[in-house]
């Protein structure tokens, strides 16, 4: 049933009794043309684009828990594309372009809100780095502009630009098309649209083994809901990628870290945009519900525990209170953690693996949400054709052997 104000009104008259399930919950078939392991936004999106763009209909997404229960449902929903390197610009800008029409594409309101992402500069080094971004982005045709501290305050009134701050705000880079979206809706929207195209979405099915034939090629996965055969398997499992790839004998350049986020109690609109500060480690926006959504840094040690230390979120609140002294009496309502898979160069790995038929899309670290549509789009093309999509090609696993890294973190000193 198509979603619209009209259908909503008609269903309301009927007491909403006839809304169907948003996605089917079939029993797994014995075999598919392709299996996606991981029912987050990237995995569901991959299945959707495989079906929509490449005509594959005999596809399954297997998810060990519930859809969108990993990082898709645990992040701070920041979307932007003002990255430094051309390879990064290409994939994140593709994503932003897809975000701009995603609600329509999926017939599901993902609430993409291009309210502007402002990255604060606190040192002369920050200024140099951000201006480099602004110039690089302008050359690439990506919006990103430099703001003086006063202009930054105009754009974001609660911001403290006092020169007496420990690390005063010396300026900001603003991407006006950056913003936020509703994270759960992305997973559900892709699931509903993929299911409508015939994709089987299989929840509560944990992959326990990846099967390979005599030649070493993939022939399927074993799950807690039975064996599922497939000649193409795409692993899109974020923090759990190392474990899954280990089942196929592939070692990965990944480490999984806890990443915390927190929300305040809801208040009336007070913060109109997204504000990021890498120097003092703070990321904050206000949800449509009114909560301040705040991202902290990762804990220092690898972990699969989905929690982190109080000192890590405390450090972020230190910074928030310094940058926004009017938020000091606001109260933290909920704090949670995700597991982020981090690569040595902080850029993702998208593509083929040494195992024929096995594909991987991982390593998004702390910045995967924004890339969801673009990542899914190029990964679907890569899986469909058996060779990297041009935008995915630089993000190959081989780059760690050749040394052709795409190091946003080192280059920019900016977290994703």
């Amino acid at each position, binding site marked *: 049933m198509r979603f619209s104000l009209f259908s909503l009104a008609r269903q309301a008259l009927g007491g909403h009794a006839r809304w169907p399930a948003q996605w089917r919950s079939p029993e797994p078939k014995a075999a598919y043309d392709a299996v996606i392991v991981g029912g987050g936004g990237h995995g569901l999106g991959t299945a959707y684009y495989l079906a929509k763009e490449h005509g594959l209909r005999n596809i399954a997404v297997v998810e060990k828990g519930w859809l969108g229960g990993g990082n898709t449902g645990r992040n701070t929903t920041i979307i932007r594309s003002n990255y430094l390197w051309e390879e990064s610009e290409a994939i994140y800008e593709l994503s932003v372009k897809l975000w701009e029409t995603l609600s329509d594409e999926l017939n599901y309101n993902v609430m993409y809100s291009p309210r502007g992402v402002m990255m604060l500069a606190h040192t002369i080094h920050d200024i140099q780095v951000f201006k480099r971004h602004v110039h690089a982005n302008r050359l690439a045709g990506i919006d990103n502009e430099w703001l003086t501290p006063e202009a930054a305050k105009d754009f974001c009134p609660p911001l403290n630009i006092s020169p007496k701050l420990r690390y005063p705000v010396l300026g900001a880079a603003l991407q006006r098309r950056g913003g936020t979206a509703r994270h759960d809706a992305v997973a559900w929207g892709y699931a509903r649209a993929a299911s409508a195209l015939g994709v089987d979405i299989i929840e509560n099915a944990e992959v326990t083994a990846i099967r390979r034939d005599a030649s070493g090629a993939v022939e399927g996965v074993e799950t807690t809901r039975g064996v599922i055969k497939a000649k193409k398997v795409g692993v899109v499992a974020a923090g*759990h990628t*190392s*474990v899954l790839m*280990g089942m196929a004998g592939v*070692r*990965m*350049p*990944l*480490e*999984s870290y806890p990443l915390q986020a927190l929300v305040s109690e809801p208040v009336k609109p007070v913060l109109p945009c997204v504000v990021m500060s890498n120097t003092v480690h703070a990321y904050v926006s206000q949800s449509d519900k009114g909560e301040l959504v705040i991202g902290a840094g990762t804990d*220092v*040690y*690898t*972990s*699969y*525990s989905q*929690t982190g*230390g*109080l*000192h890590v979120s405390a450090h972020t609140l230190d910074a928030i209170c310094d940058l926004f002294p009017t938020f000091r009496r606001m109260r933290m309502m909920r704090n949670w953690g995700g597991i982020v898979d981090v690569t*040595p160069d902080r850029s993702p790995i998208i593509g083929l693996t040494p195992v024929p038929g096995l594909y991987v899309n991982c390593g998004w670290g702390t910045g995967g949400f924004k890339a969801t549509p673009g990542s899914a789009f190029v990964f679907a093309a890569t899986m469909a054709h058996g060779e990297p999509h041009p935008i995915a090609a630089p993000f190959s696993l081989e780059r*760690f*052997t*050749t040394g052709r890294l795409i190091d946003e973190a080192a280059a920019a000193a900016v977290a994703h």
Partner: protein
Amino acid sequence: MLLITCPYCCTARPESEFRYSGEAHIARPLEPATVSDDDWAAFLYMRTNPKGLHAERWRHIHGCGRFFNALRNTVTDQILKTYPAGTPRPGLGAPAEGGR
């Protein structure tokens, strides 16, 4: 804030006294020049990243300054054993130490 027992200081101290330094038992090749690009990449970047027991390096940076290794369960974050750098990964037959 984990509590970590430094095997040199023989006392449990808060995590903030320590610095995490990644997976343990990845030895730098003795003759890097003779190592293939693939093997060198494996040394530089490939990590076990297990869900479960992880042998990892810590340095008591705000204490004795020394590096040591720990066996930690990455699901519970419980540290089961700490031991000096350069010694082999122990089994867990002995009673757990480090943490409680």
